[in-house]
Every structure is written in C-alpha cells, then in structure tokens.
C-alpha cells in the first residue's frame, strides 16, 4: 500500500437555508436584544479615507426572479489598496474602514445595499495591479456552497482592460457580467450590480 498523505478533508458545505438571518443578521429579522448590532452592517467610519459609494443590486435566479432570502458578504481593500486584515503584509489599512460588510436582500424587493468606499488597486501574484474590485460571497436557500464573484467598476475602463483576473475570462462576452455601471444622484455615487445565478447573462463565479 502506498503511504497515506497526512491531510484532513475540509468540512463539506451545506446550504445556509431560508433562515440564515437568525444567525447572521438577527436584529434585521426581529431577534432583538441578543447582539447590540448585526455584524458587518457598518463598514465606513466617519474618518475613513476615500470616495463614499453605495452598491446596490439584486440576485436573480434562473427564471429572472430576485432572491428575497439571500445573504451577501463583501470583502475589499481600502482606498489605498490595503486590507483591514492581520494577514495583510503590505502595510496598515485605514483603521476607520472594516473592508467587510454583510447585508440581506430585501424581503419584498430582493435588493441589497452596501454603503462603502471605492477600493484602491491591489497586486496580482506577479506584482501587476488588478483593477479595483469588491469580492462578493453569496449564500441562500438552494445554494449548496457559497458563490464567489467580483464586482468591478465601469468607470475604471483602463484598469479593467489590464486586470490579470478579468483577462482570465475566456469568453469575453461574459466580462460585462462583472462590471457595475456608475450613477450619480442626490444620494451620491452609486453602482448597480445585479448577480444572475443561472441562464442568460449568467454572472461569472470563481473557484479561488
């Protein structure tokens, strides 16, 4: 018999189910008094550096129906391109910006909404710069393992064109599924990022 590799297997994923909010956004779903505030609700402190932006969107199933029970987490660099993480080795990130957010999709409209800042650029493994992006992680009833994608910014055309990760998308017709259009209104700068789980214009999901 060949020797055994001394490795454990990763615990398998299971769906977050329809009641994921009980555990991850209990105040949002009416379970008051257990935690003072839902984790990840506020990402940006008053003194945070960078351009304030709102990111909204919906998660659509294969019939085009928005998911009203999804939960989304985002993870991103600060305005200088540094992550607020103890394993960030390149420097100290802005202490007034968490970089991590968590929001449910609305129970009626299916819309999610993050108040954040526009991230700076971070390097790829070979040192080339990636285009500014926000990492998305989507869980819900019917999703057996969390889906990982990225949102890029439509007003970063030059950076997007040279991003080593976007360059890996073989079918260029799919690149626009990762790029959020920018709008400016009375509430400031907003980006809209609709995520299509299945079918026409299906969002690119990553195995990282």
């Amino acid at each position: 018999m060949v020797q055994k590799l001394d490795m454990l297997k990763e615990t398998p994923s299971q769906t977050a189910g329809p009641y994921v909010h009980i555990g991850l956004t209990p105040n949002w779903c009416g379970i008051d008094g257990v935690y003072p505030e839902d984790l990840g609700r506020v990402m940006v402190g008053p003194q945070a550096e960078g351009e304030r932006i709102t990111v909204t969107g919906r998660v659509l199933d294969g019939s085009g129906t928005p998911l009203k029970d999804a939960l989304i987490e985002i993870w991103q660099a600060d305005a200088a391109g540094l992550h607020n993480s103890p394993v960030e080795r390149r420097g100290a990130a802005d202490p007034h910006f968490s970089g991590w957010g968590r929001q449910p999709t609305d129970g009626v409209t299916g819309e999610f909404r993050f108040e954040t800042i526009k991230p700076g650029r971070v390097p790829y493994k070979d040192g080339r710069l990636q285009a500014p992006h926000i990492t998305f992680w989507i869980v819900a009833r019917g999703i057996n393992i969390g889906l990982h994608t990225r949102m890029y910014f439509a007003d970063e055309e030059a950076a997007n064109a040279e991003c080593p990760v976007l360059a890996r998308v073989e079918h260029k017709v799919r690149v626009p599924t990762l790029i959020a259009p920018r709008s400016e209104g009375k509430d400031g700068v907003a980006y809209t990022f609709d995520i299509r789980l299945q079918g026409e214009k299906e969002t690119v999901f990553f195995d990282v």
Partner: protein
Amino acid sequence: MGSFYQRDRAWHPPAFTPQYKTSVLRSPQHALLSMEGTVSEMTGPRFGHGQLGPLDNDLIHNFSRDGEPIGQRIIVHGRILDENGRPVPGALLEFWQANAGGRYRHKREAYLAPLDPNFGGCGRTITDDDGRYWFRTIRPGAYPWPNGVNDWRPAHIHFSIFGHAFTQRLITQMYFEGDPMIWQCPIVSTIPDRAAAEQLIAALDRNNTLPMDALAYKFDIVLRGRRSTLFENRMEGN
C-alpha cells in the same frame, strides 16, 4: 503569502442537486472560473473577543425573557482545524437553529409548532489559542419543509465560520449522532460521498457532559489549509 489547497468540489455538494428543489433554479450552469487566490482572497476580516457579549455562546440564556427554554440541554464543543491539522485560533463561529419543537424564530416561518418565549436561536463565539470553541443550547427538533410532499429535516444546527482568509469562508450544518432522518434528507444527500456527510455528524460525548445538567456533543470543523511553499522562502504563518 502562501495560497490555499484547491477546494475538493467532489467532496462538497455540487450546485445542481435536483432532489433539493430550490437548487434547480439557483445553480450556475457555466463552469466556475478557476483563479489562484490573490491578496484579495488570502486576507479576511478578523473578529475580537471584545466584539462579543458574555452570553453570546449561551443560547439557554441569551434570549431569556422569564426563564429558560424548554428542551434537552446540551453543550456543543469542538476544534477548528485546517487541512494540515493545525488549530485555527481567533476564528469566529456563528450558529443558528430551531427550538426544541423544530420552530424557527423567523417571520417567514409558519410551522404550527409553537415558539419558545425564552429561545432566540442564535449564538456566536471565537476559538481560543488551541482552536477550541464551545456553546450551550437546547437540542433542536426536526421540522417539516415544502420540498417533497413529506420531507423533514433531521435535527441540525447551522454553522458559519470565518478562518483567517476570506477564501476559507464556510457555512455548513451539524447533525446529531444516531438520528435516522439524516440519511433520508435531500439536503444531506446533496453531498455525494457518504464519508463527507459523516463529517457533519457530531458525536455524543459523555465525557464532557455536565452531570445532572447537560449532555455534550463534539463537532470538529476543518477549514482549507494553507500551502507550504517548499523550496521557496517560507512565509509567515506557515
């Protein structure tokens, strides 16, 4: 910064599992795009004990209104390890569950079993320096769900885990040793390999019970391991 071992997606459930009906329209049809993790994925948020309250890991008391919840008192404990068998300290675990009768405290839940006025159903904790965690709760009941005509979930507790990198992010479910409903469940059976499903079954742990108070179950969780960069400069954390 070392990258992580590739996720074994034949061990995890695939996206499309038609016996679990909701997955049919919520599963991507295109292949996932493989990408070696960058600094965006190999970093992640970290949470501190200062962010937690003293009852956050005690579901018997953290929603108490006029007493304690009805049900089988249990302790759930275990370790968070990576695939190299190393403990993961400082990992945030969040968990949620139904009450003893299988009823969730959620506005969309309409099961006729009653709510327990003293049970909320959520908790959280952070692993210690050895990767250990524990919490106290009541054992959840099975509950019916509209999938097949007569499908029931086995008793289970949902777990959400943050390791040290966003790419280790995991949500799963814990089941209880000896529950015959585990092997009838369309969600458990989304996992192709029986050995993988068995990794989700907590063992009854008599040695860690509180005599005359609570039974104990042991549930260890394994997160993705960081690659050792042999023949390269060894990076911190390896």
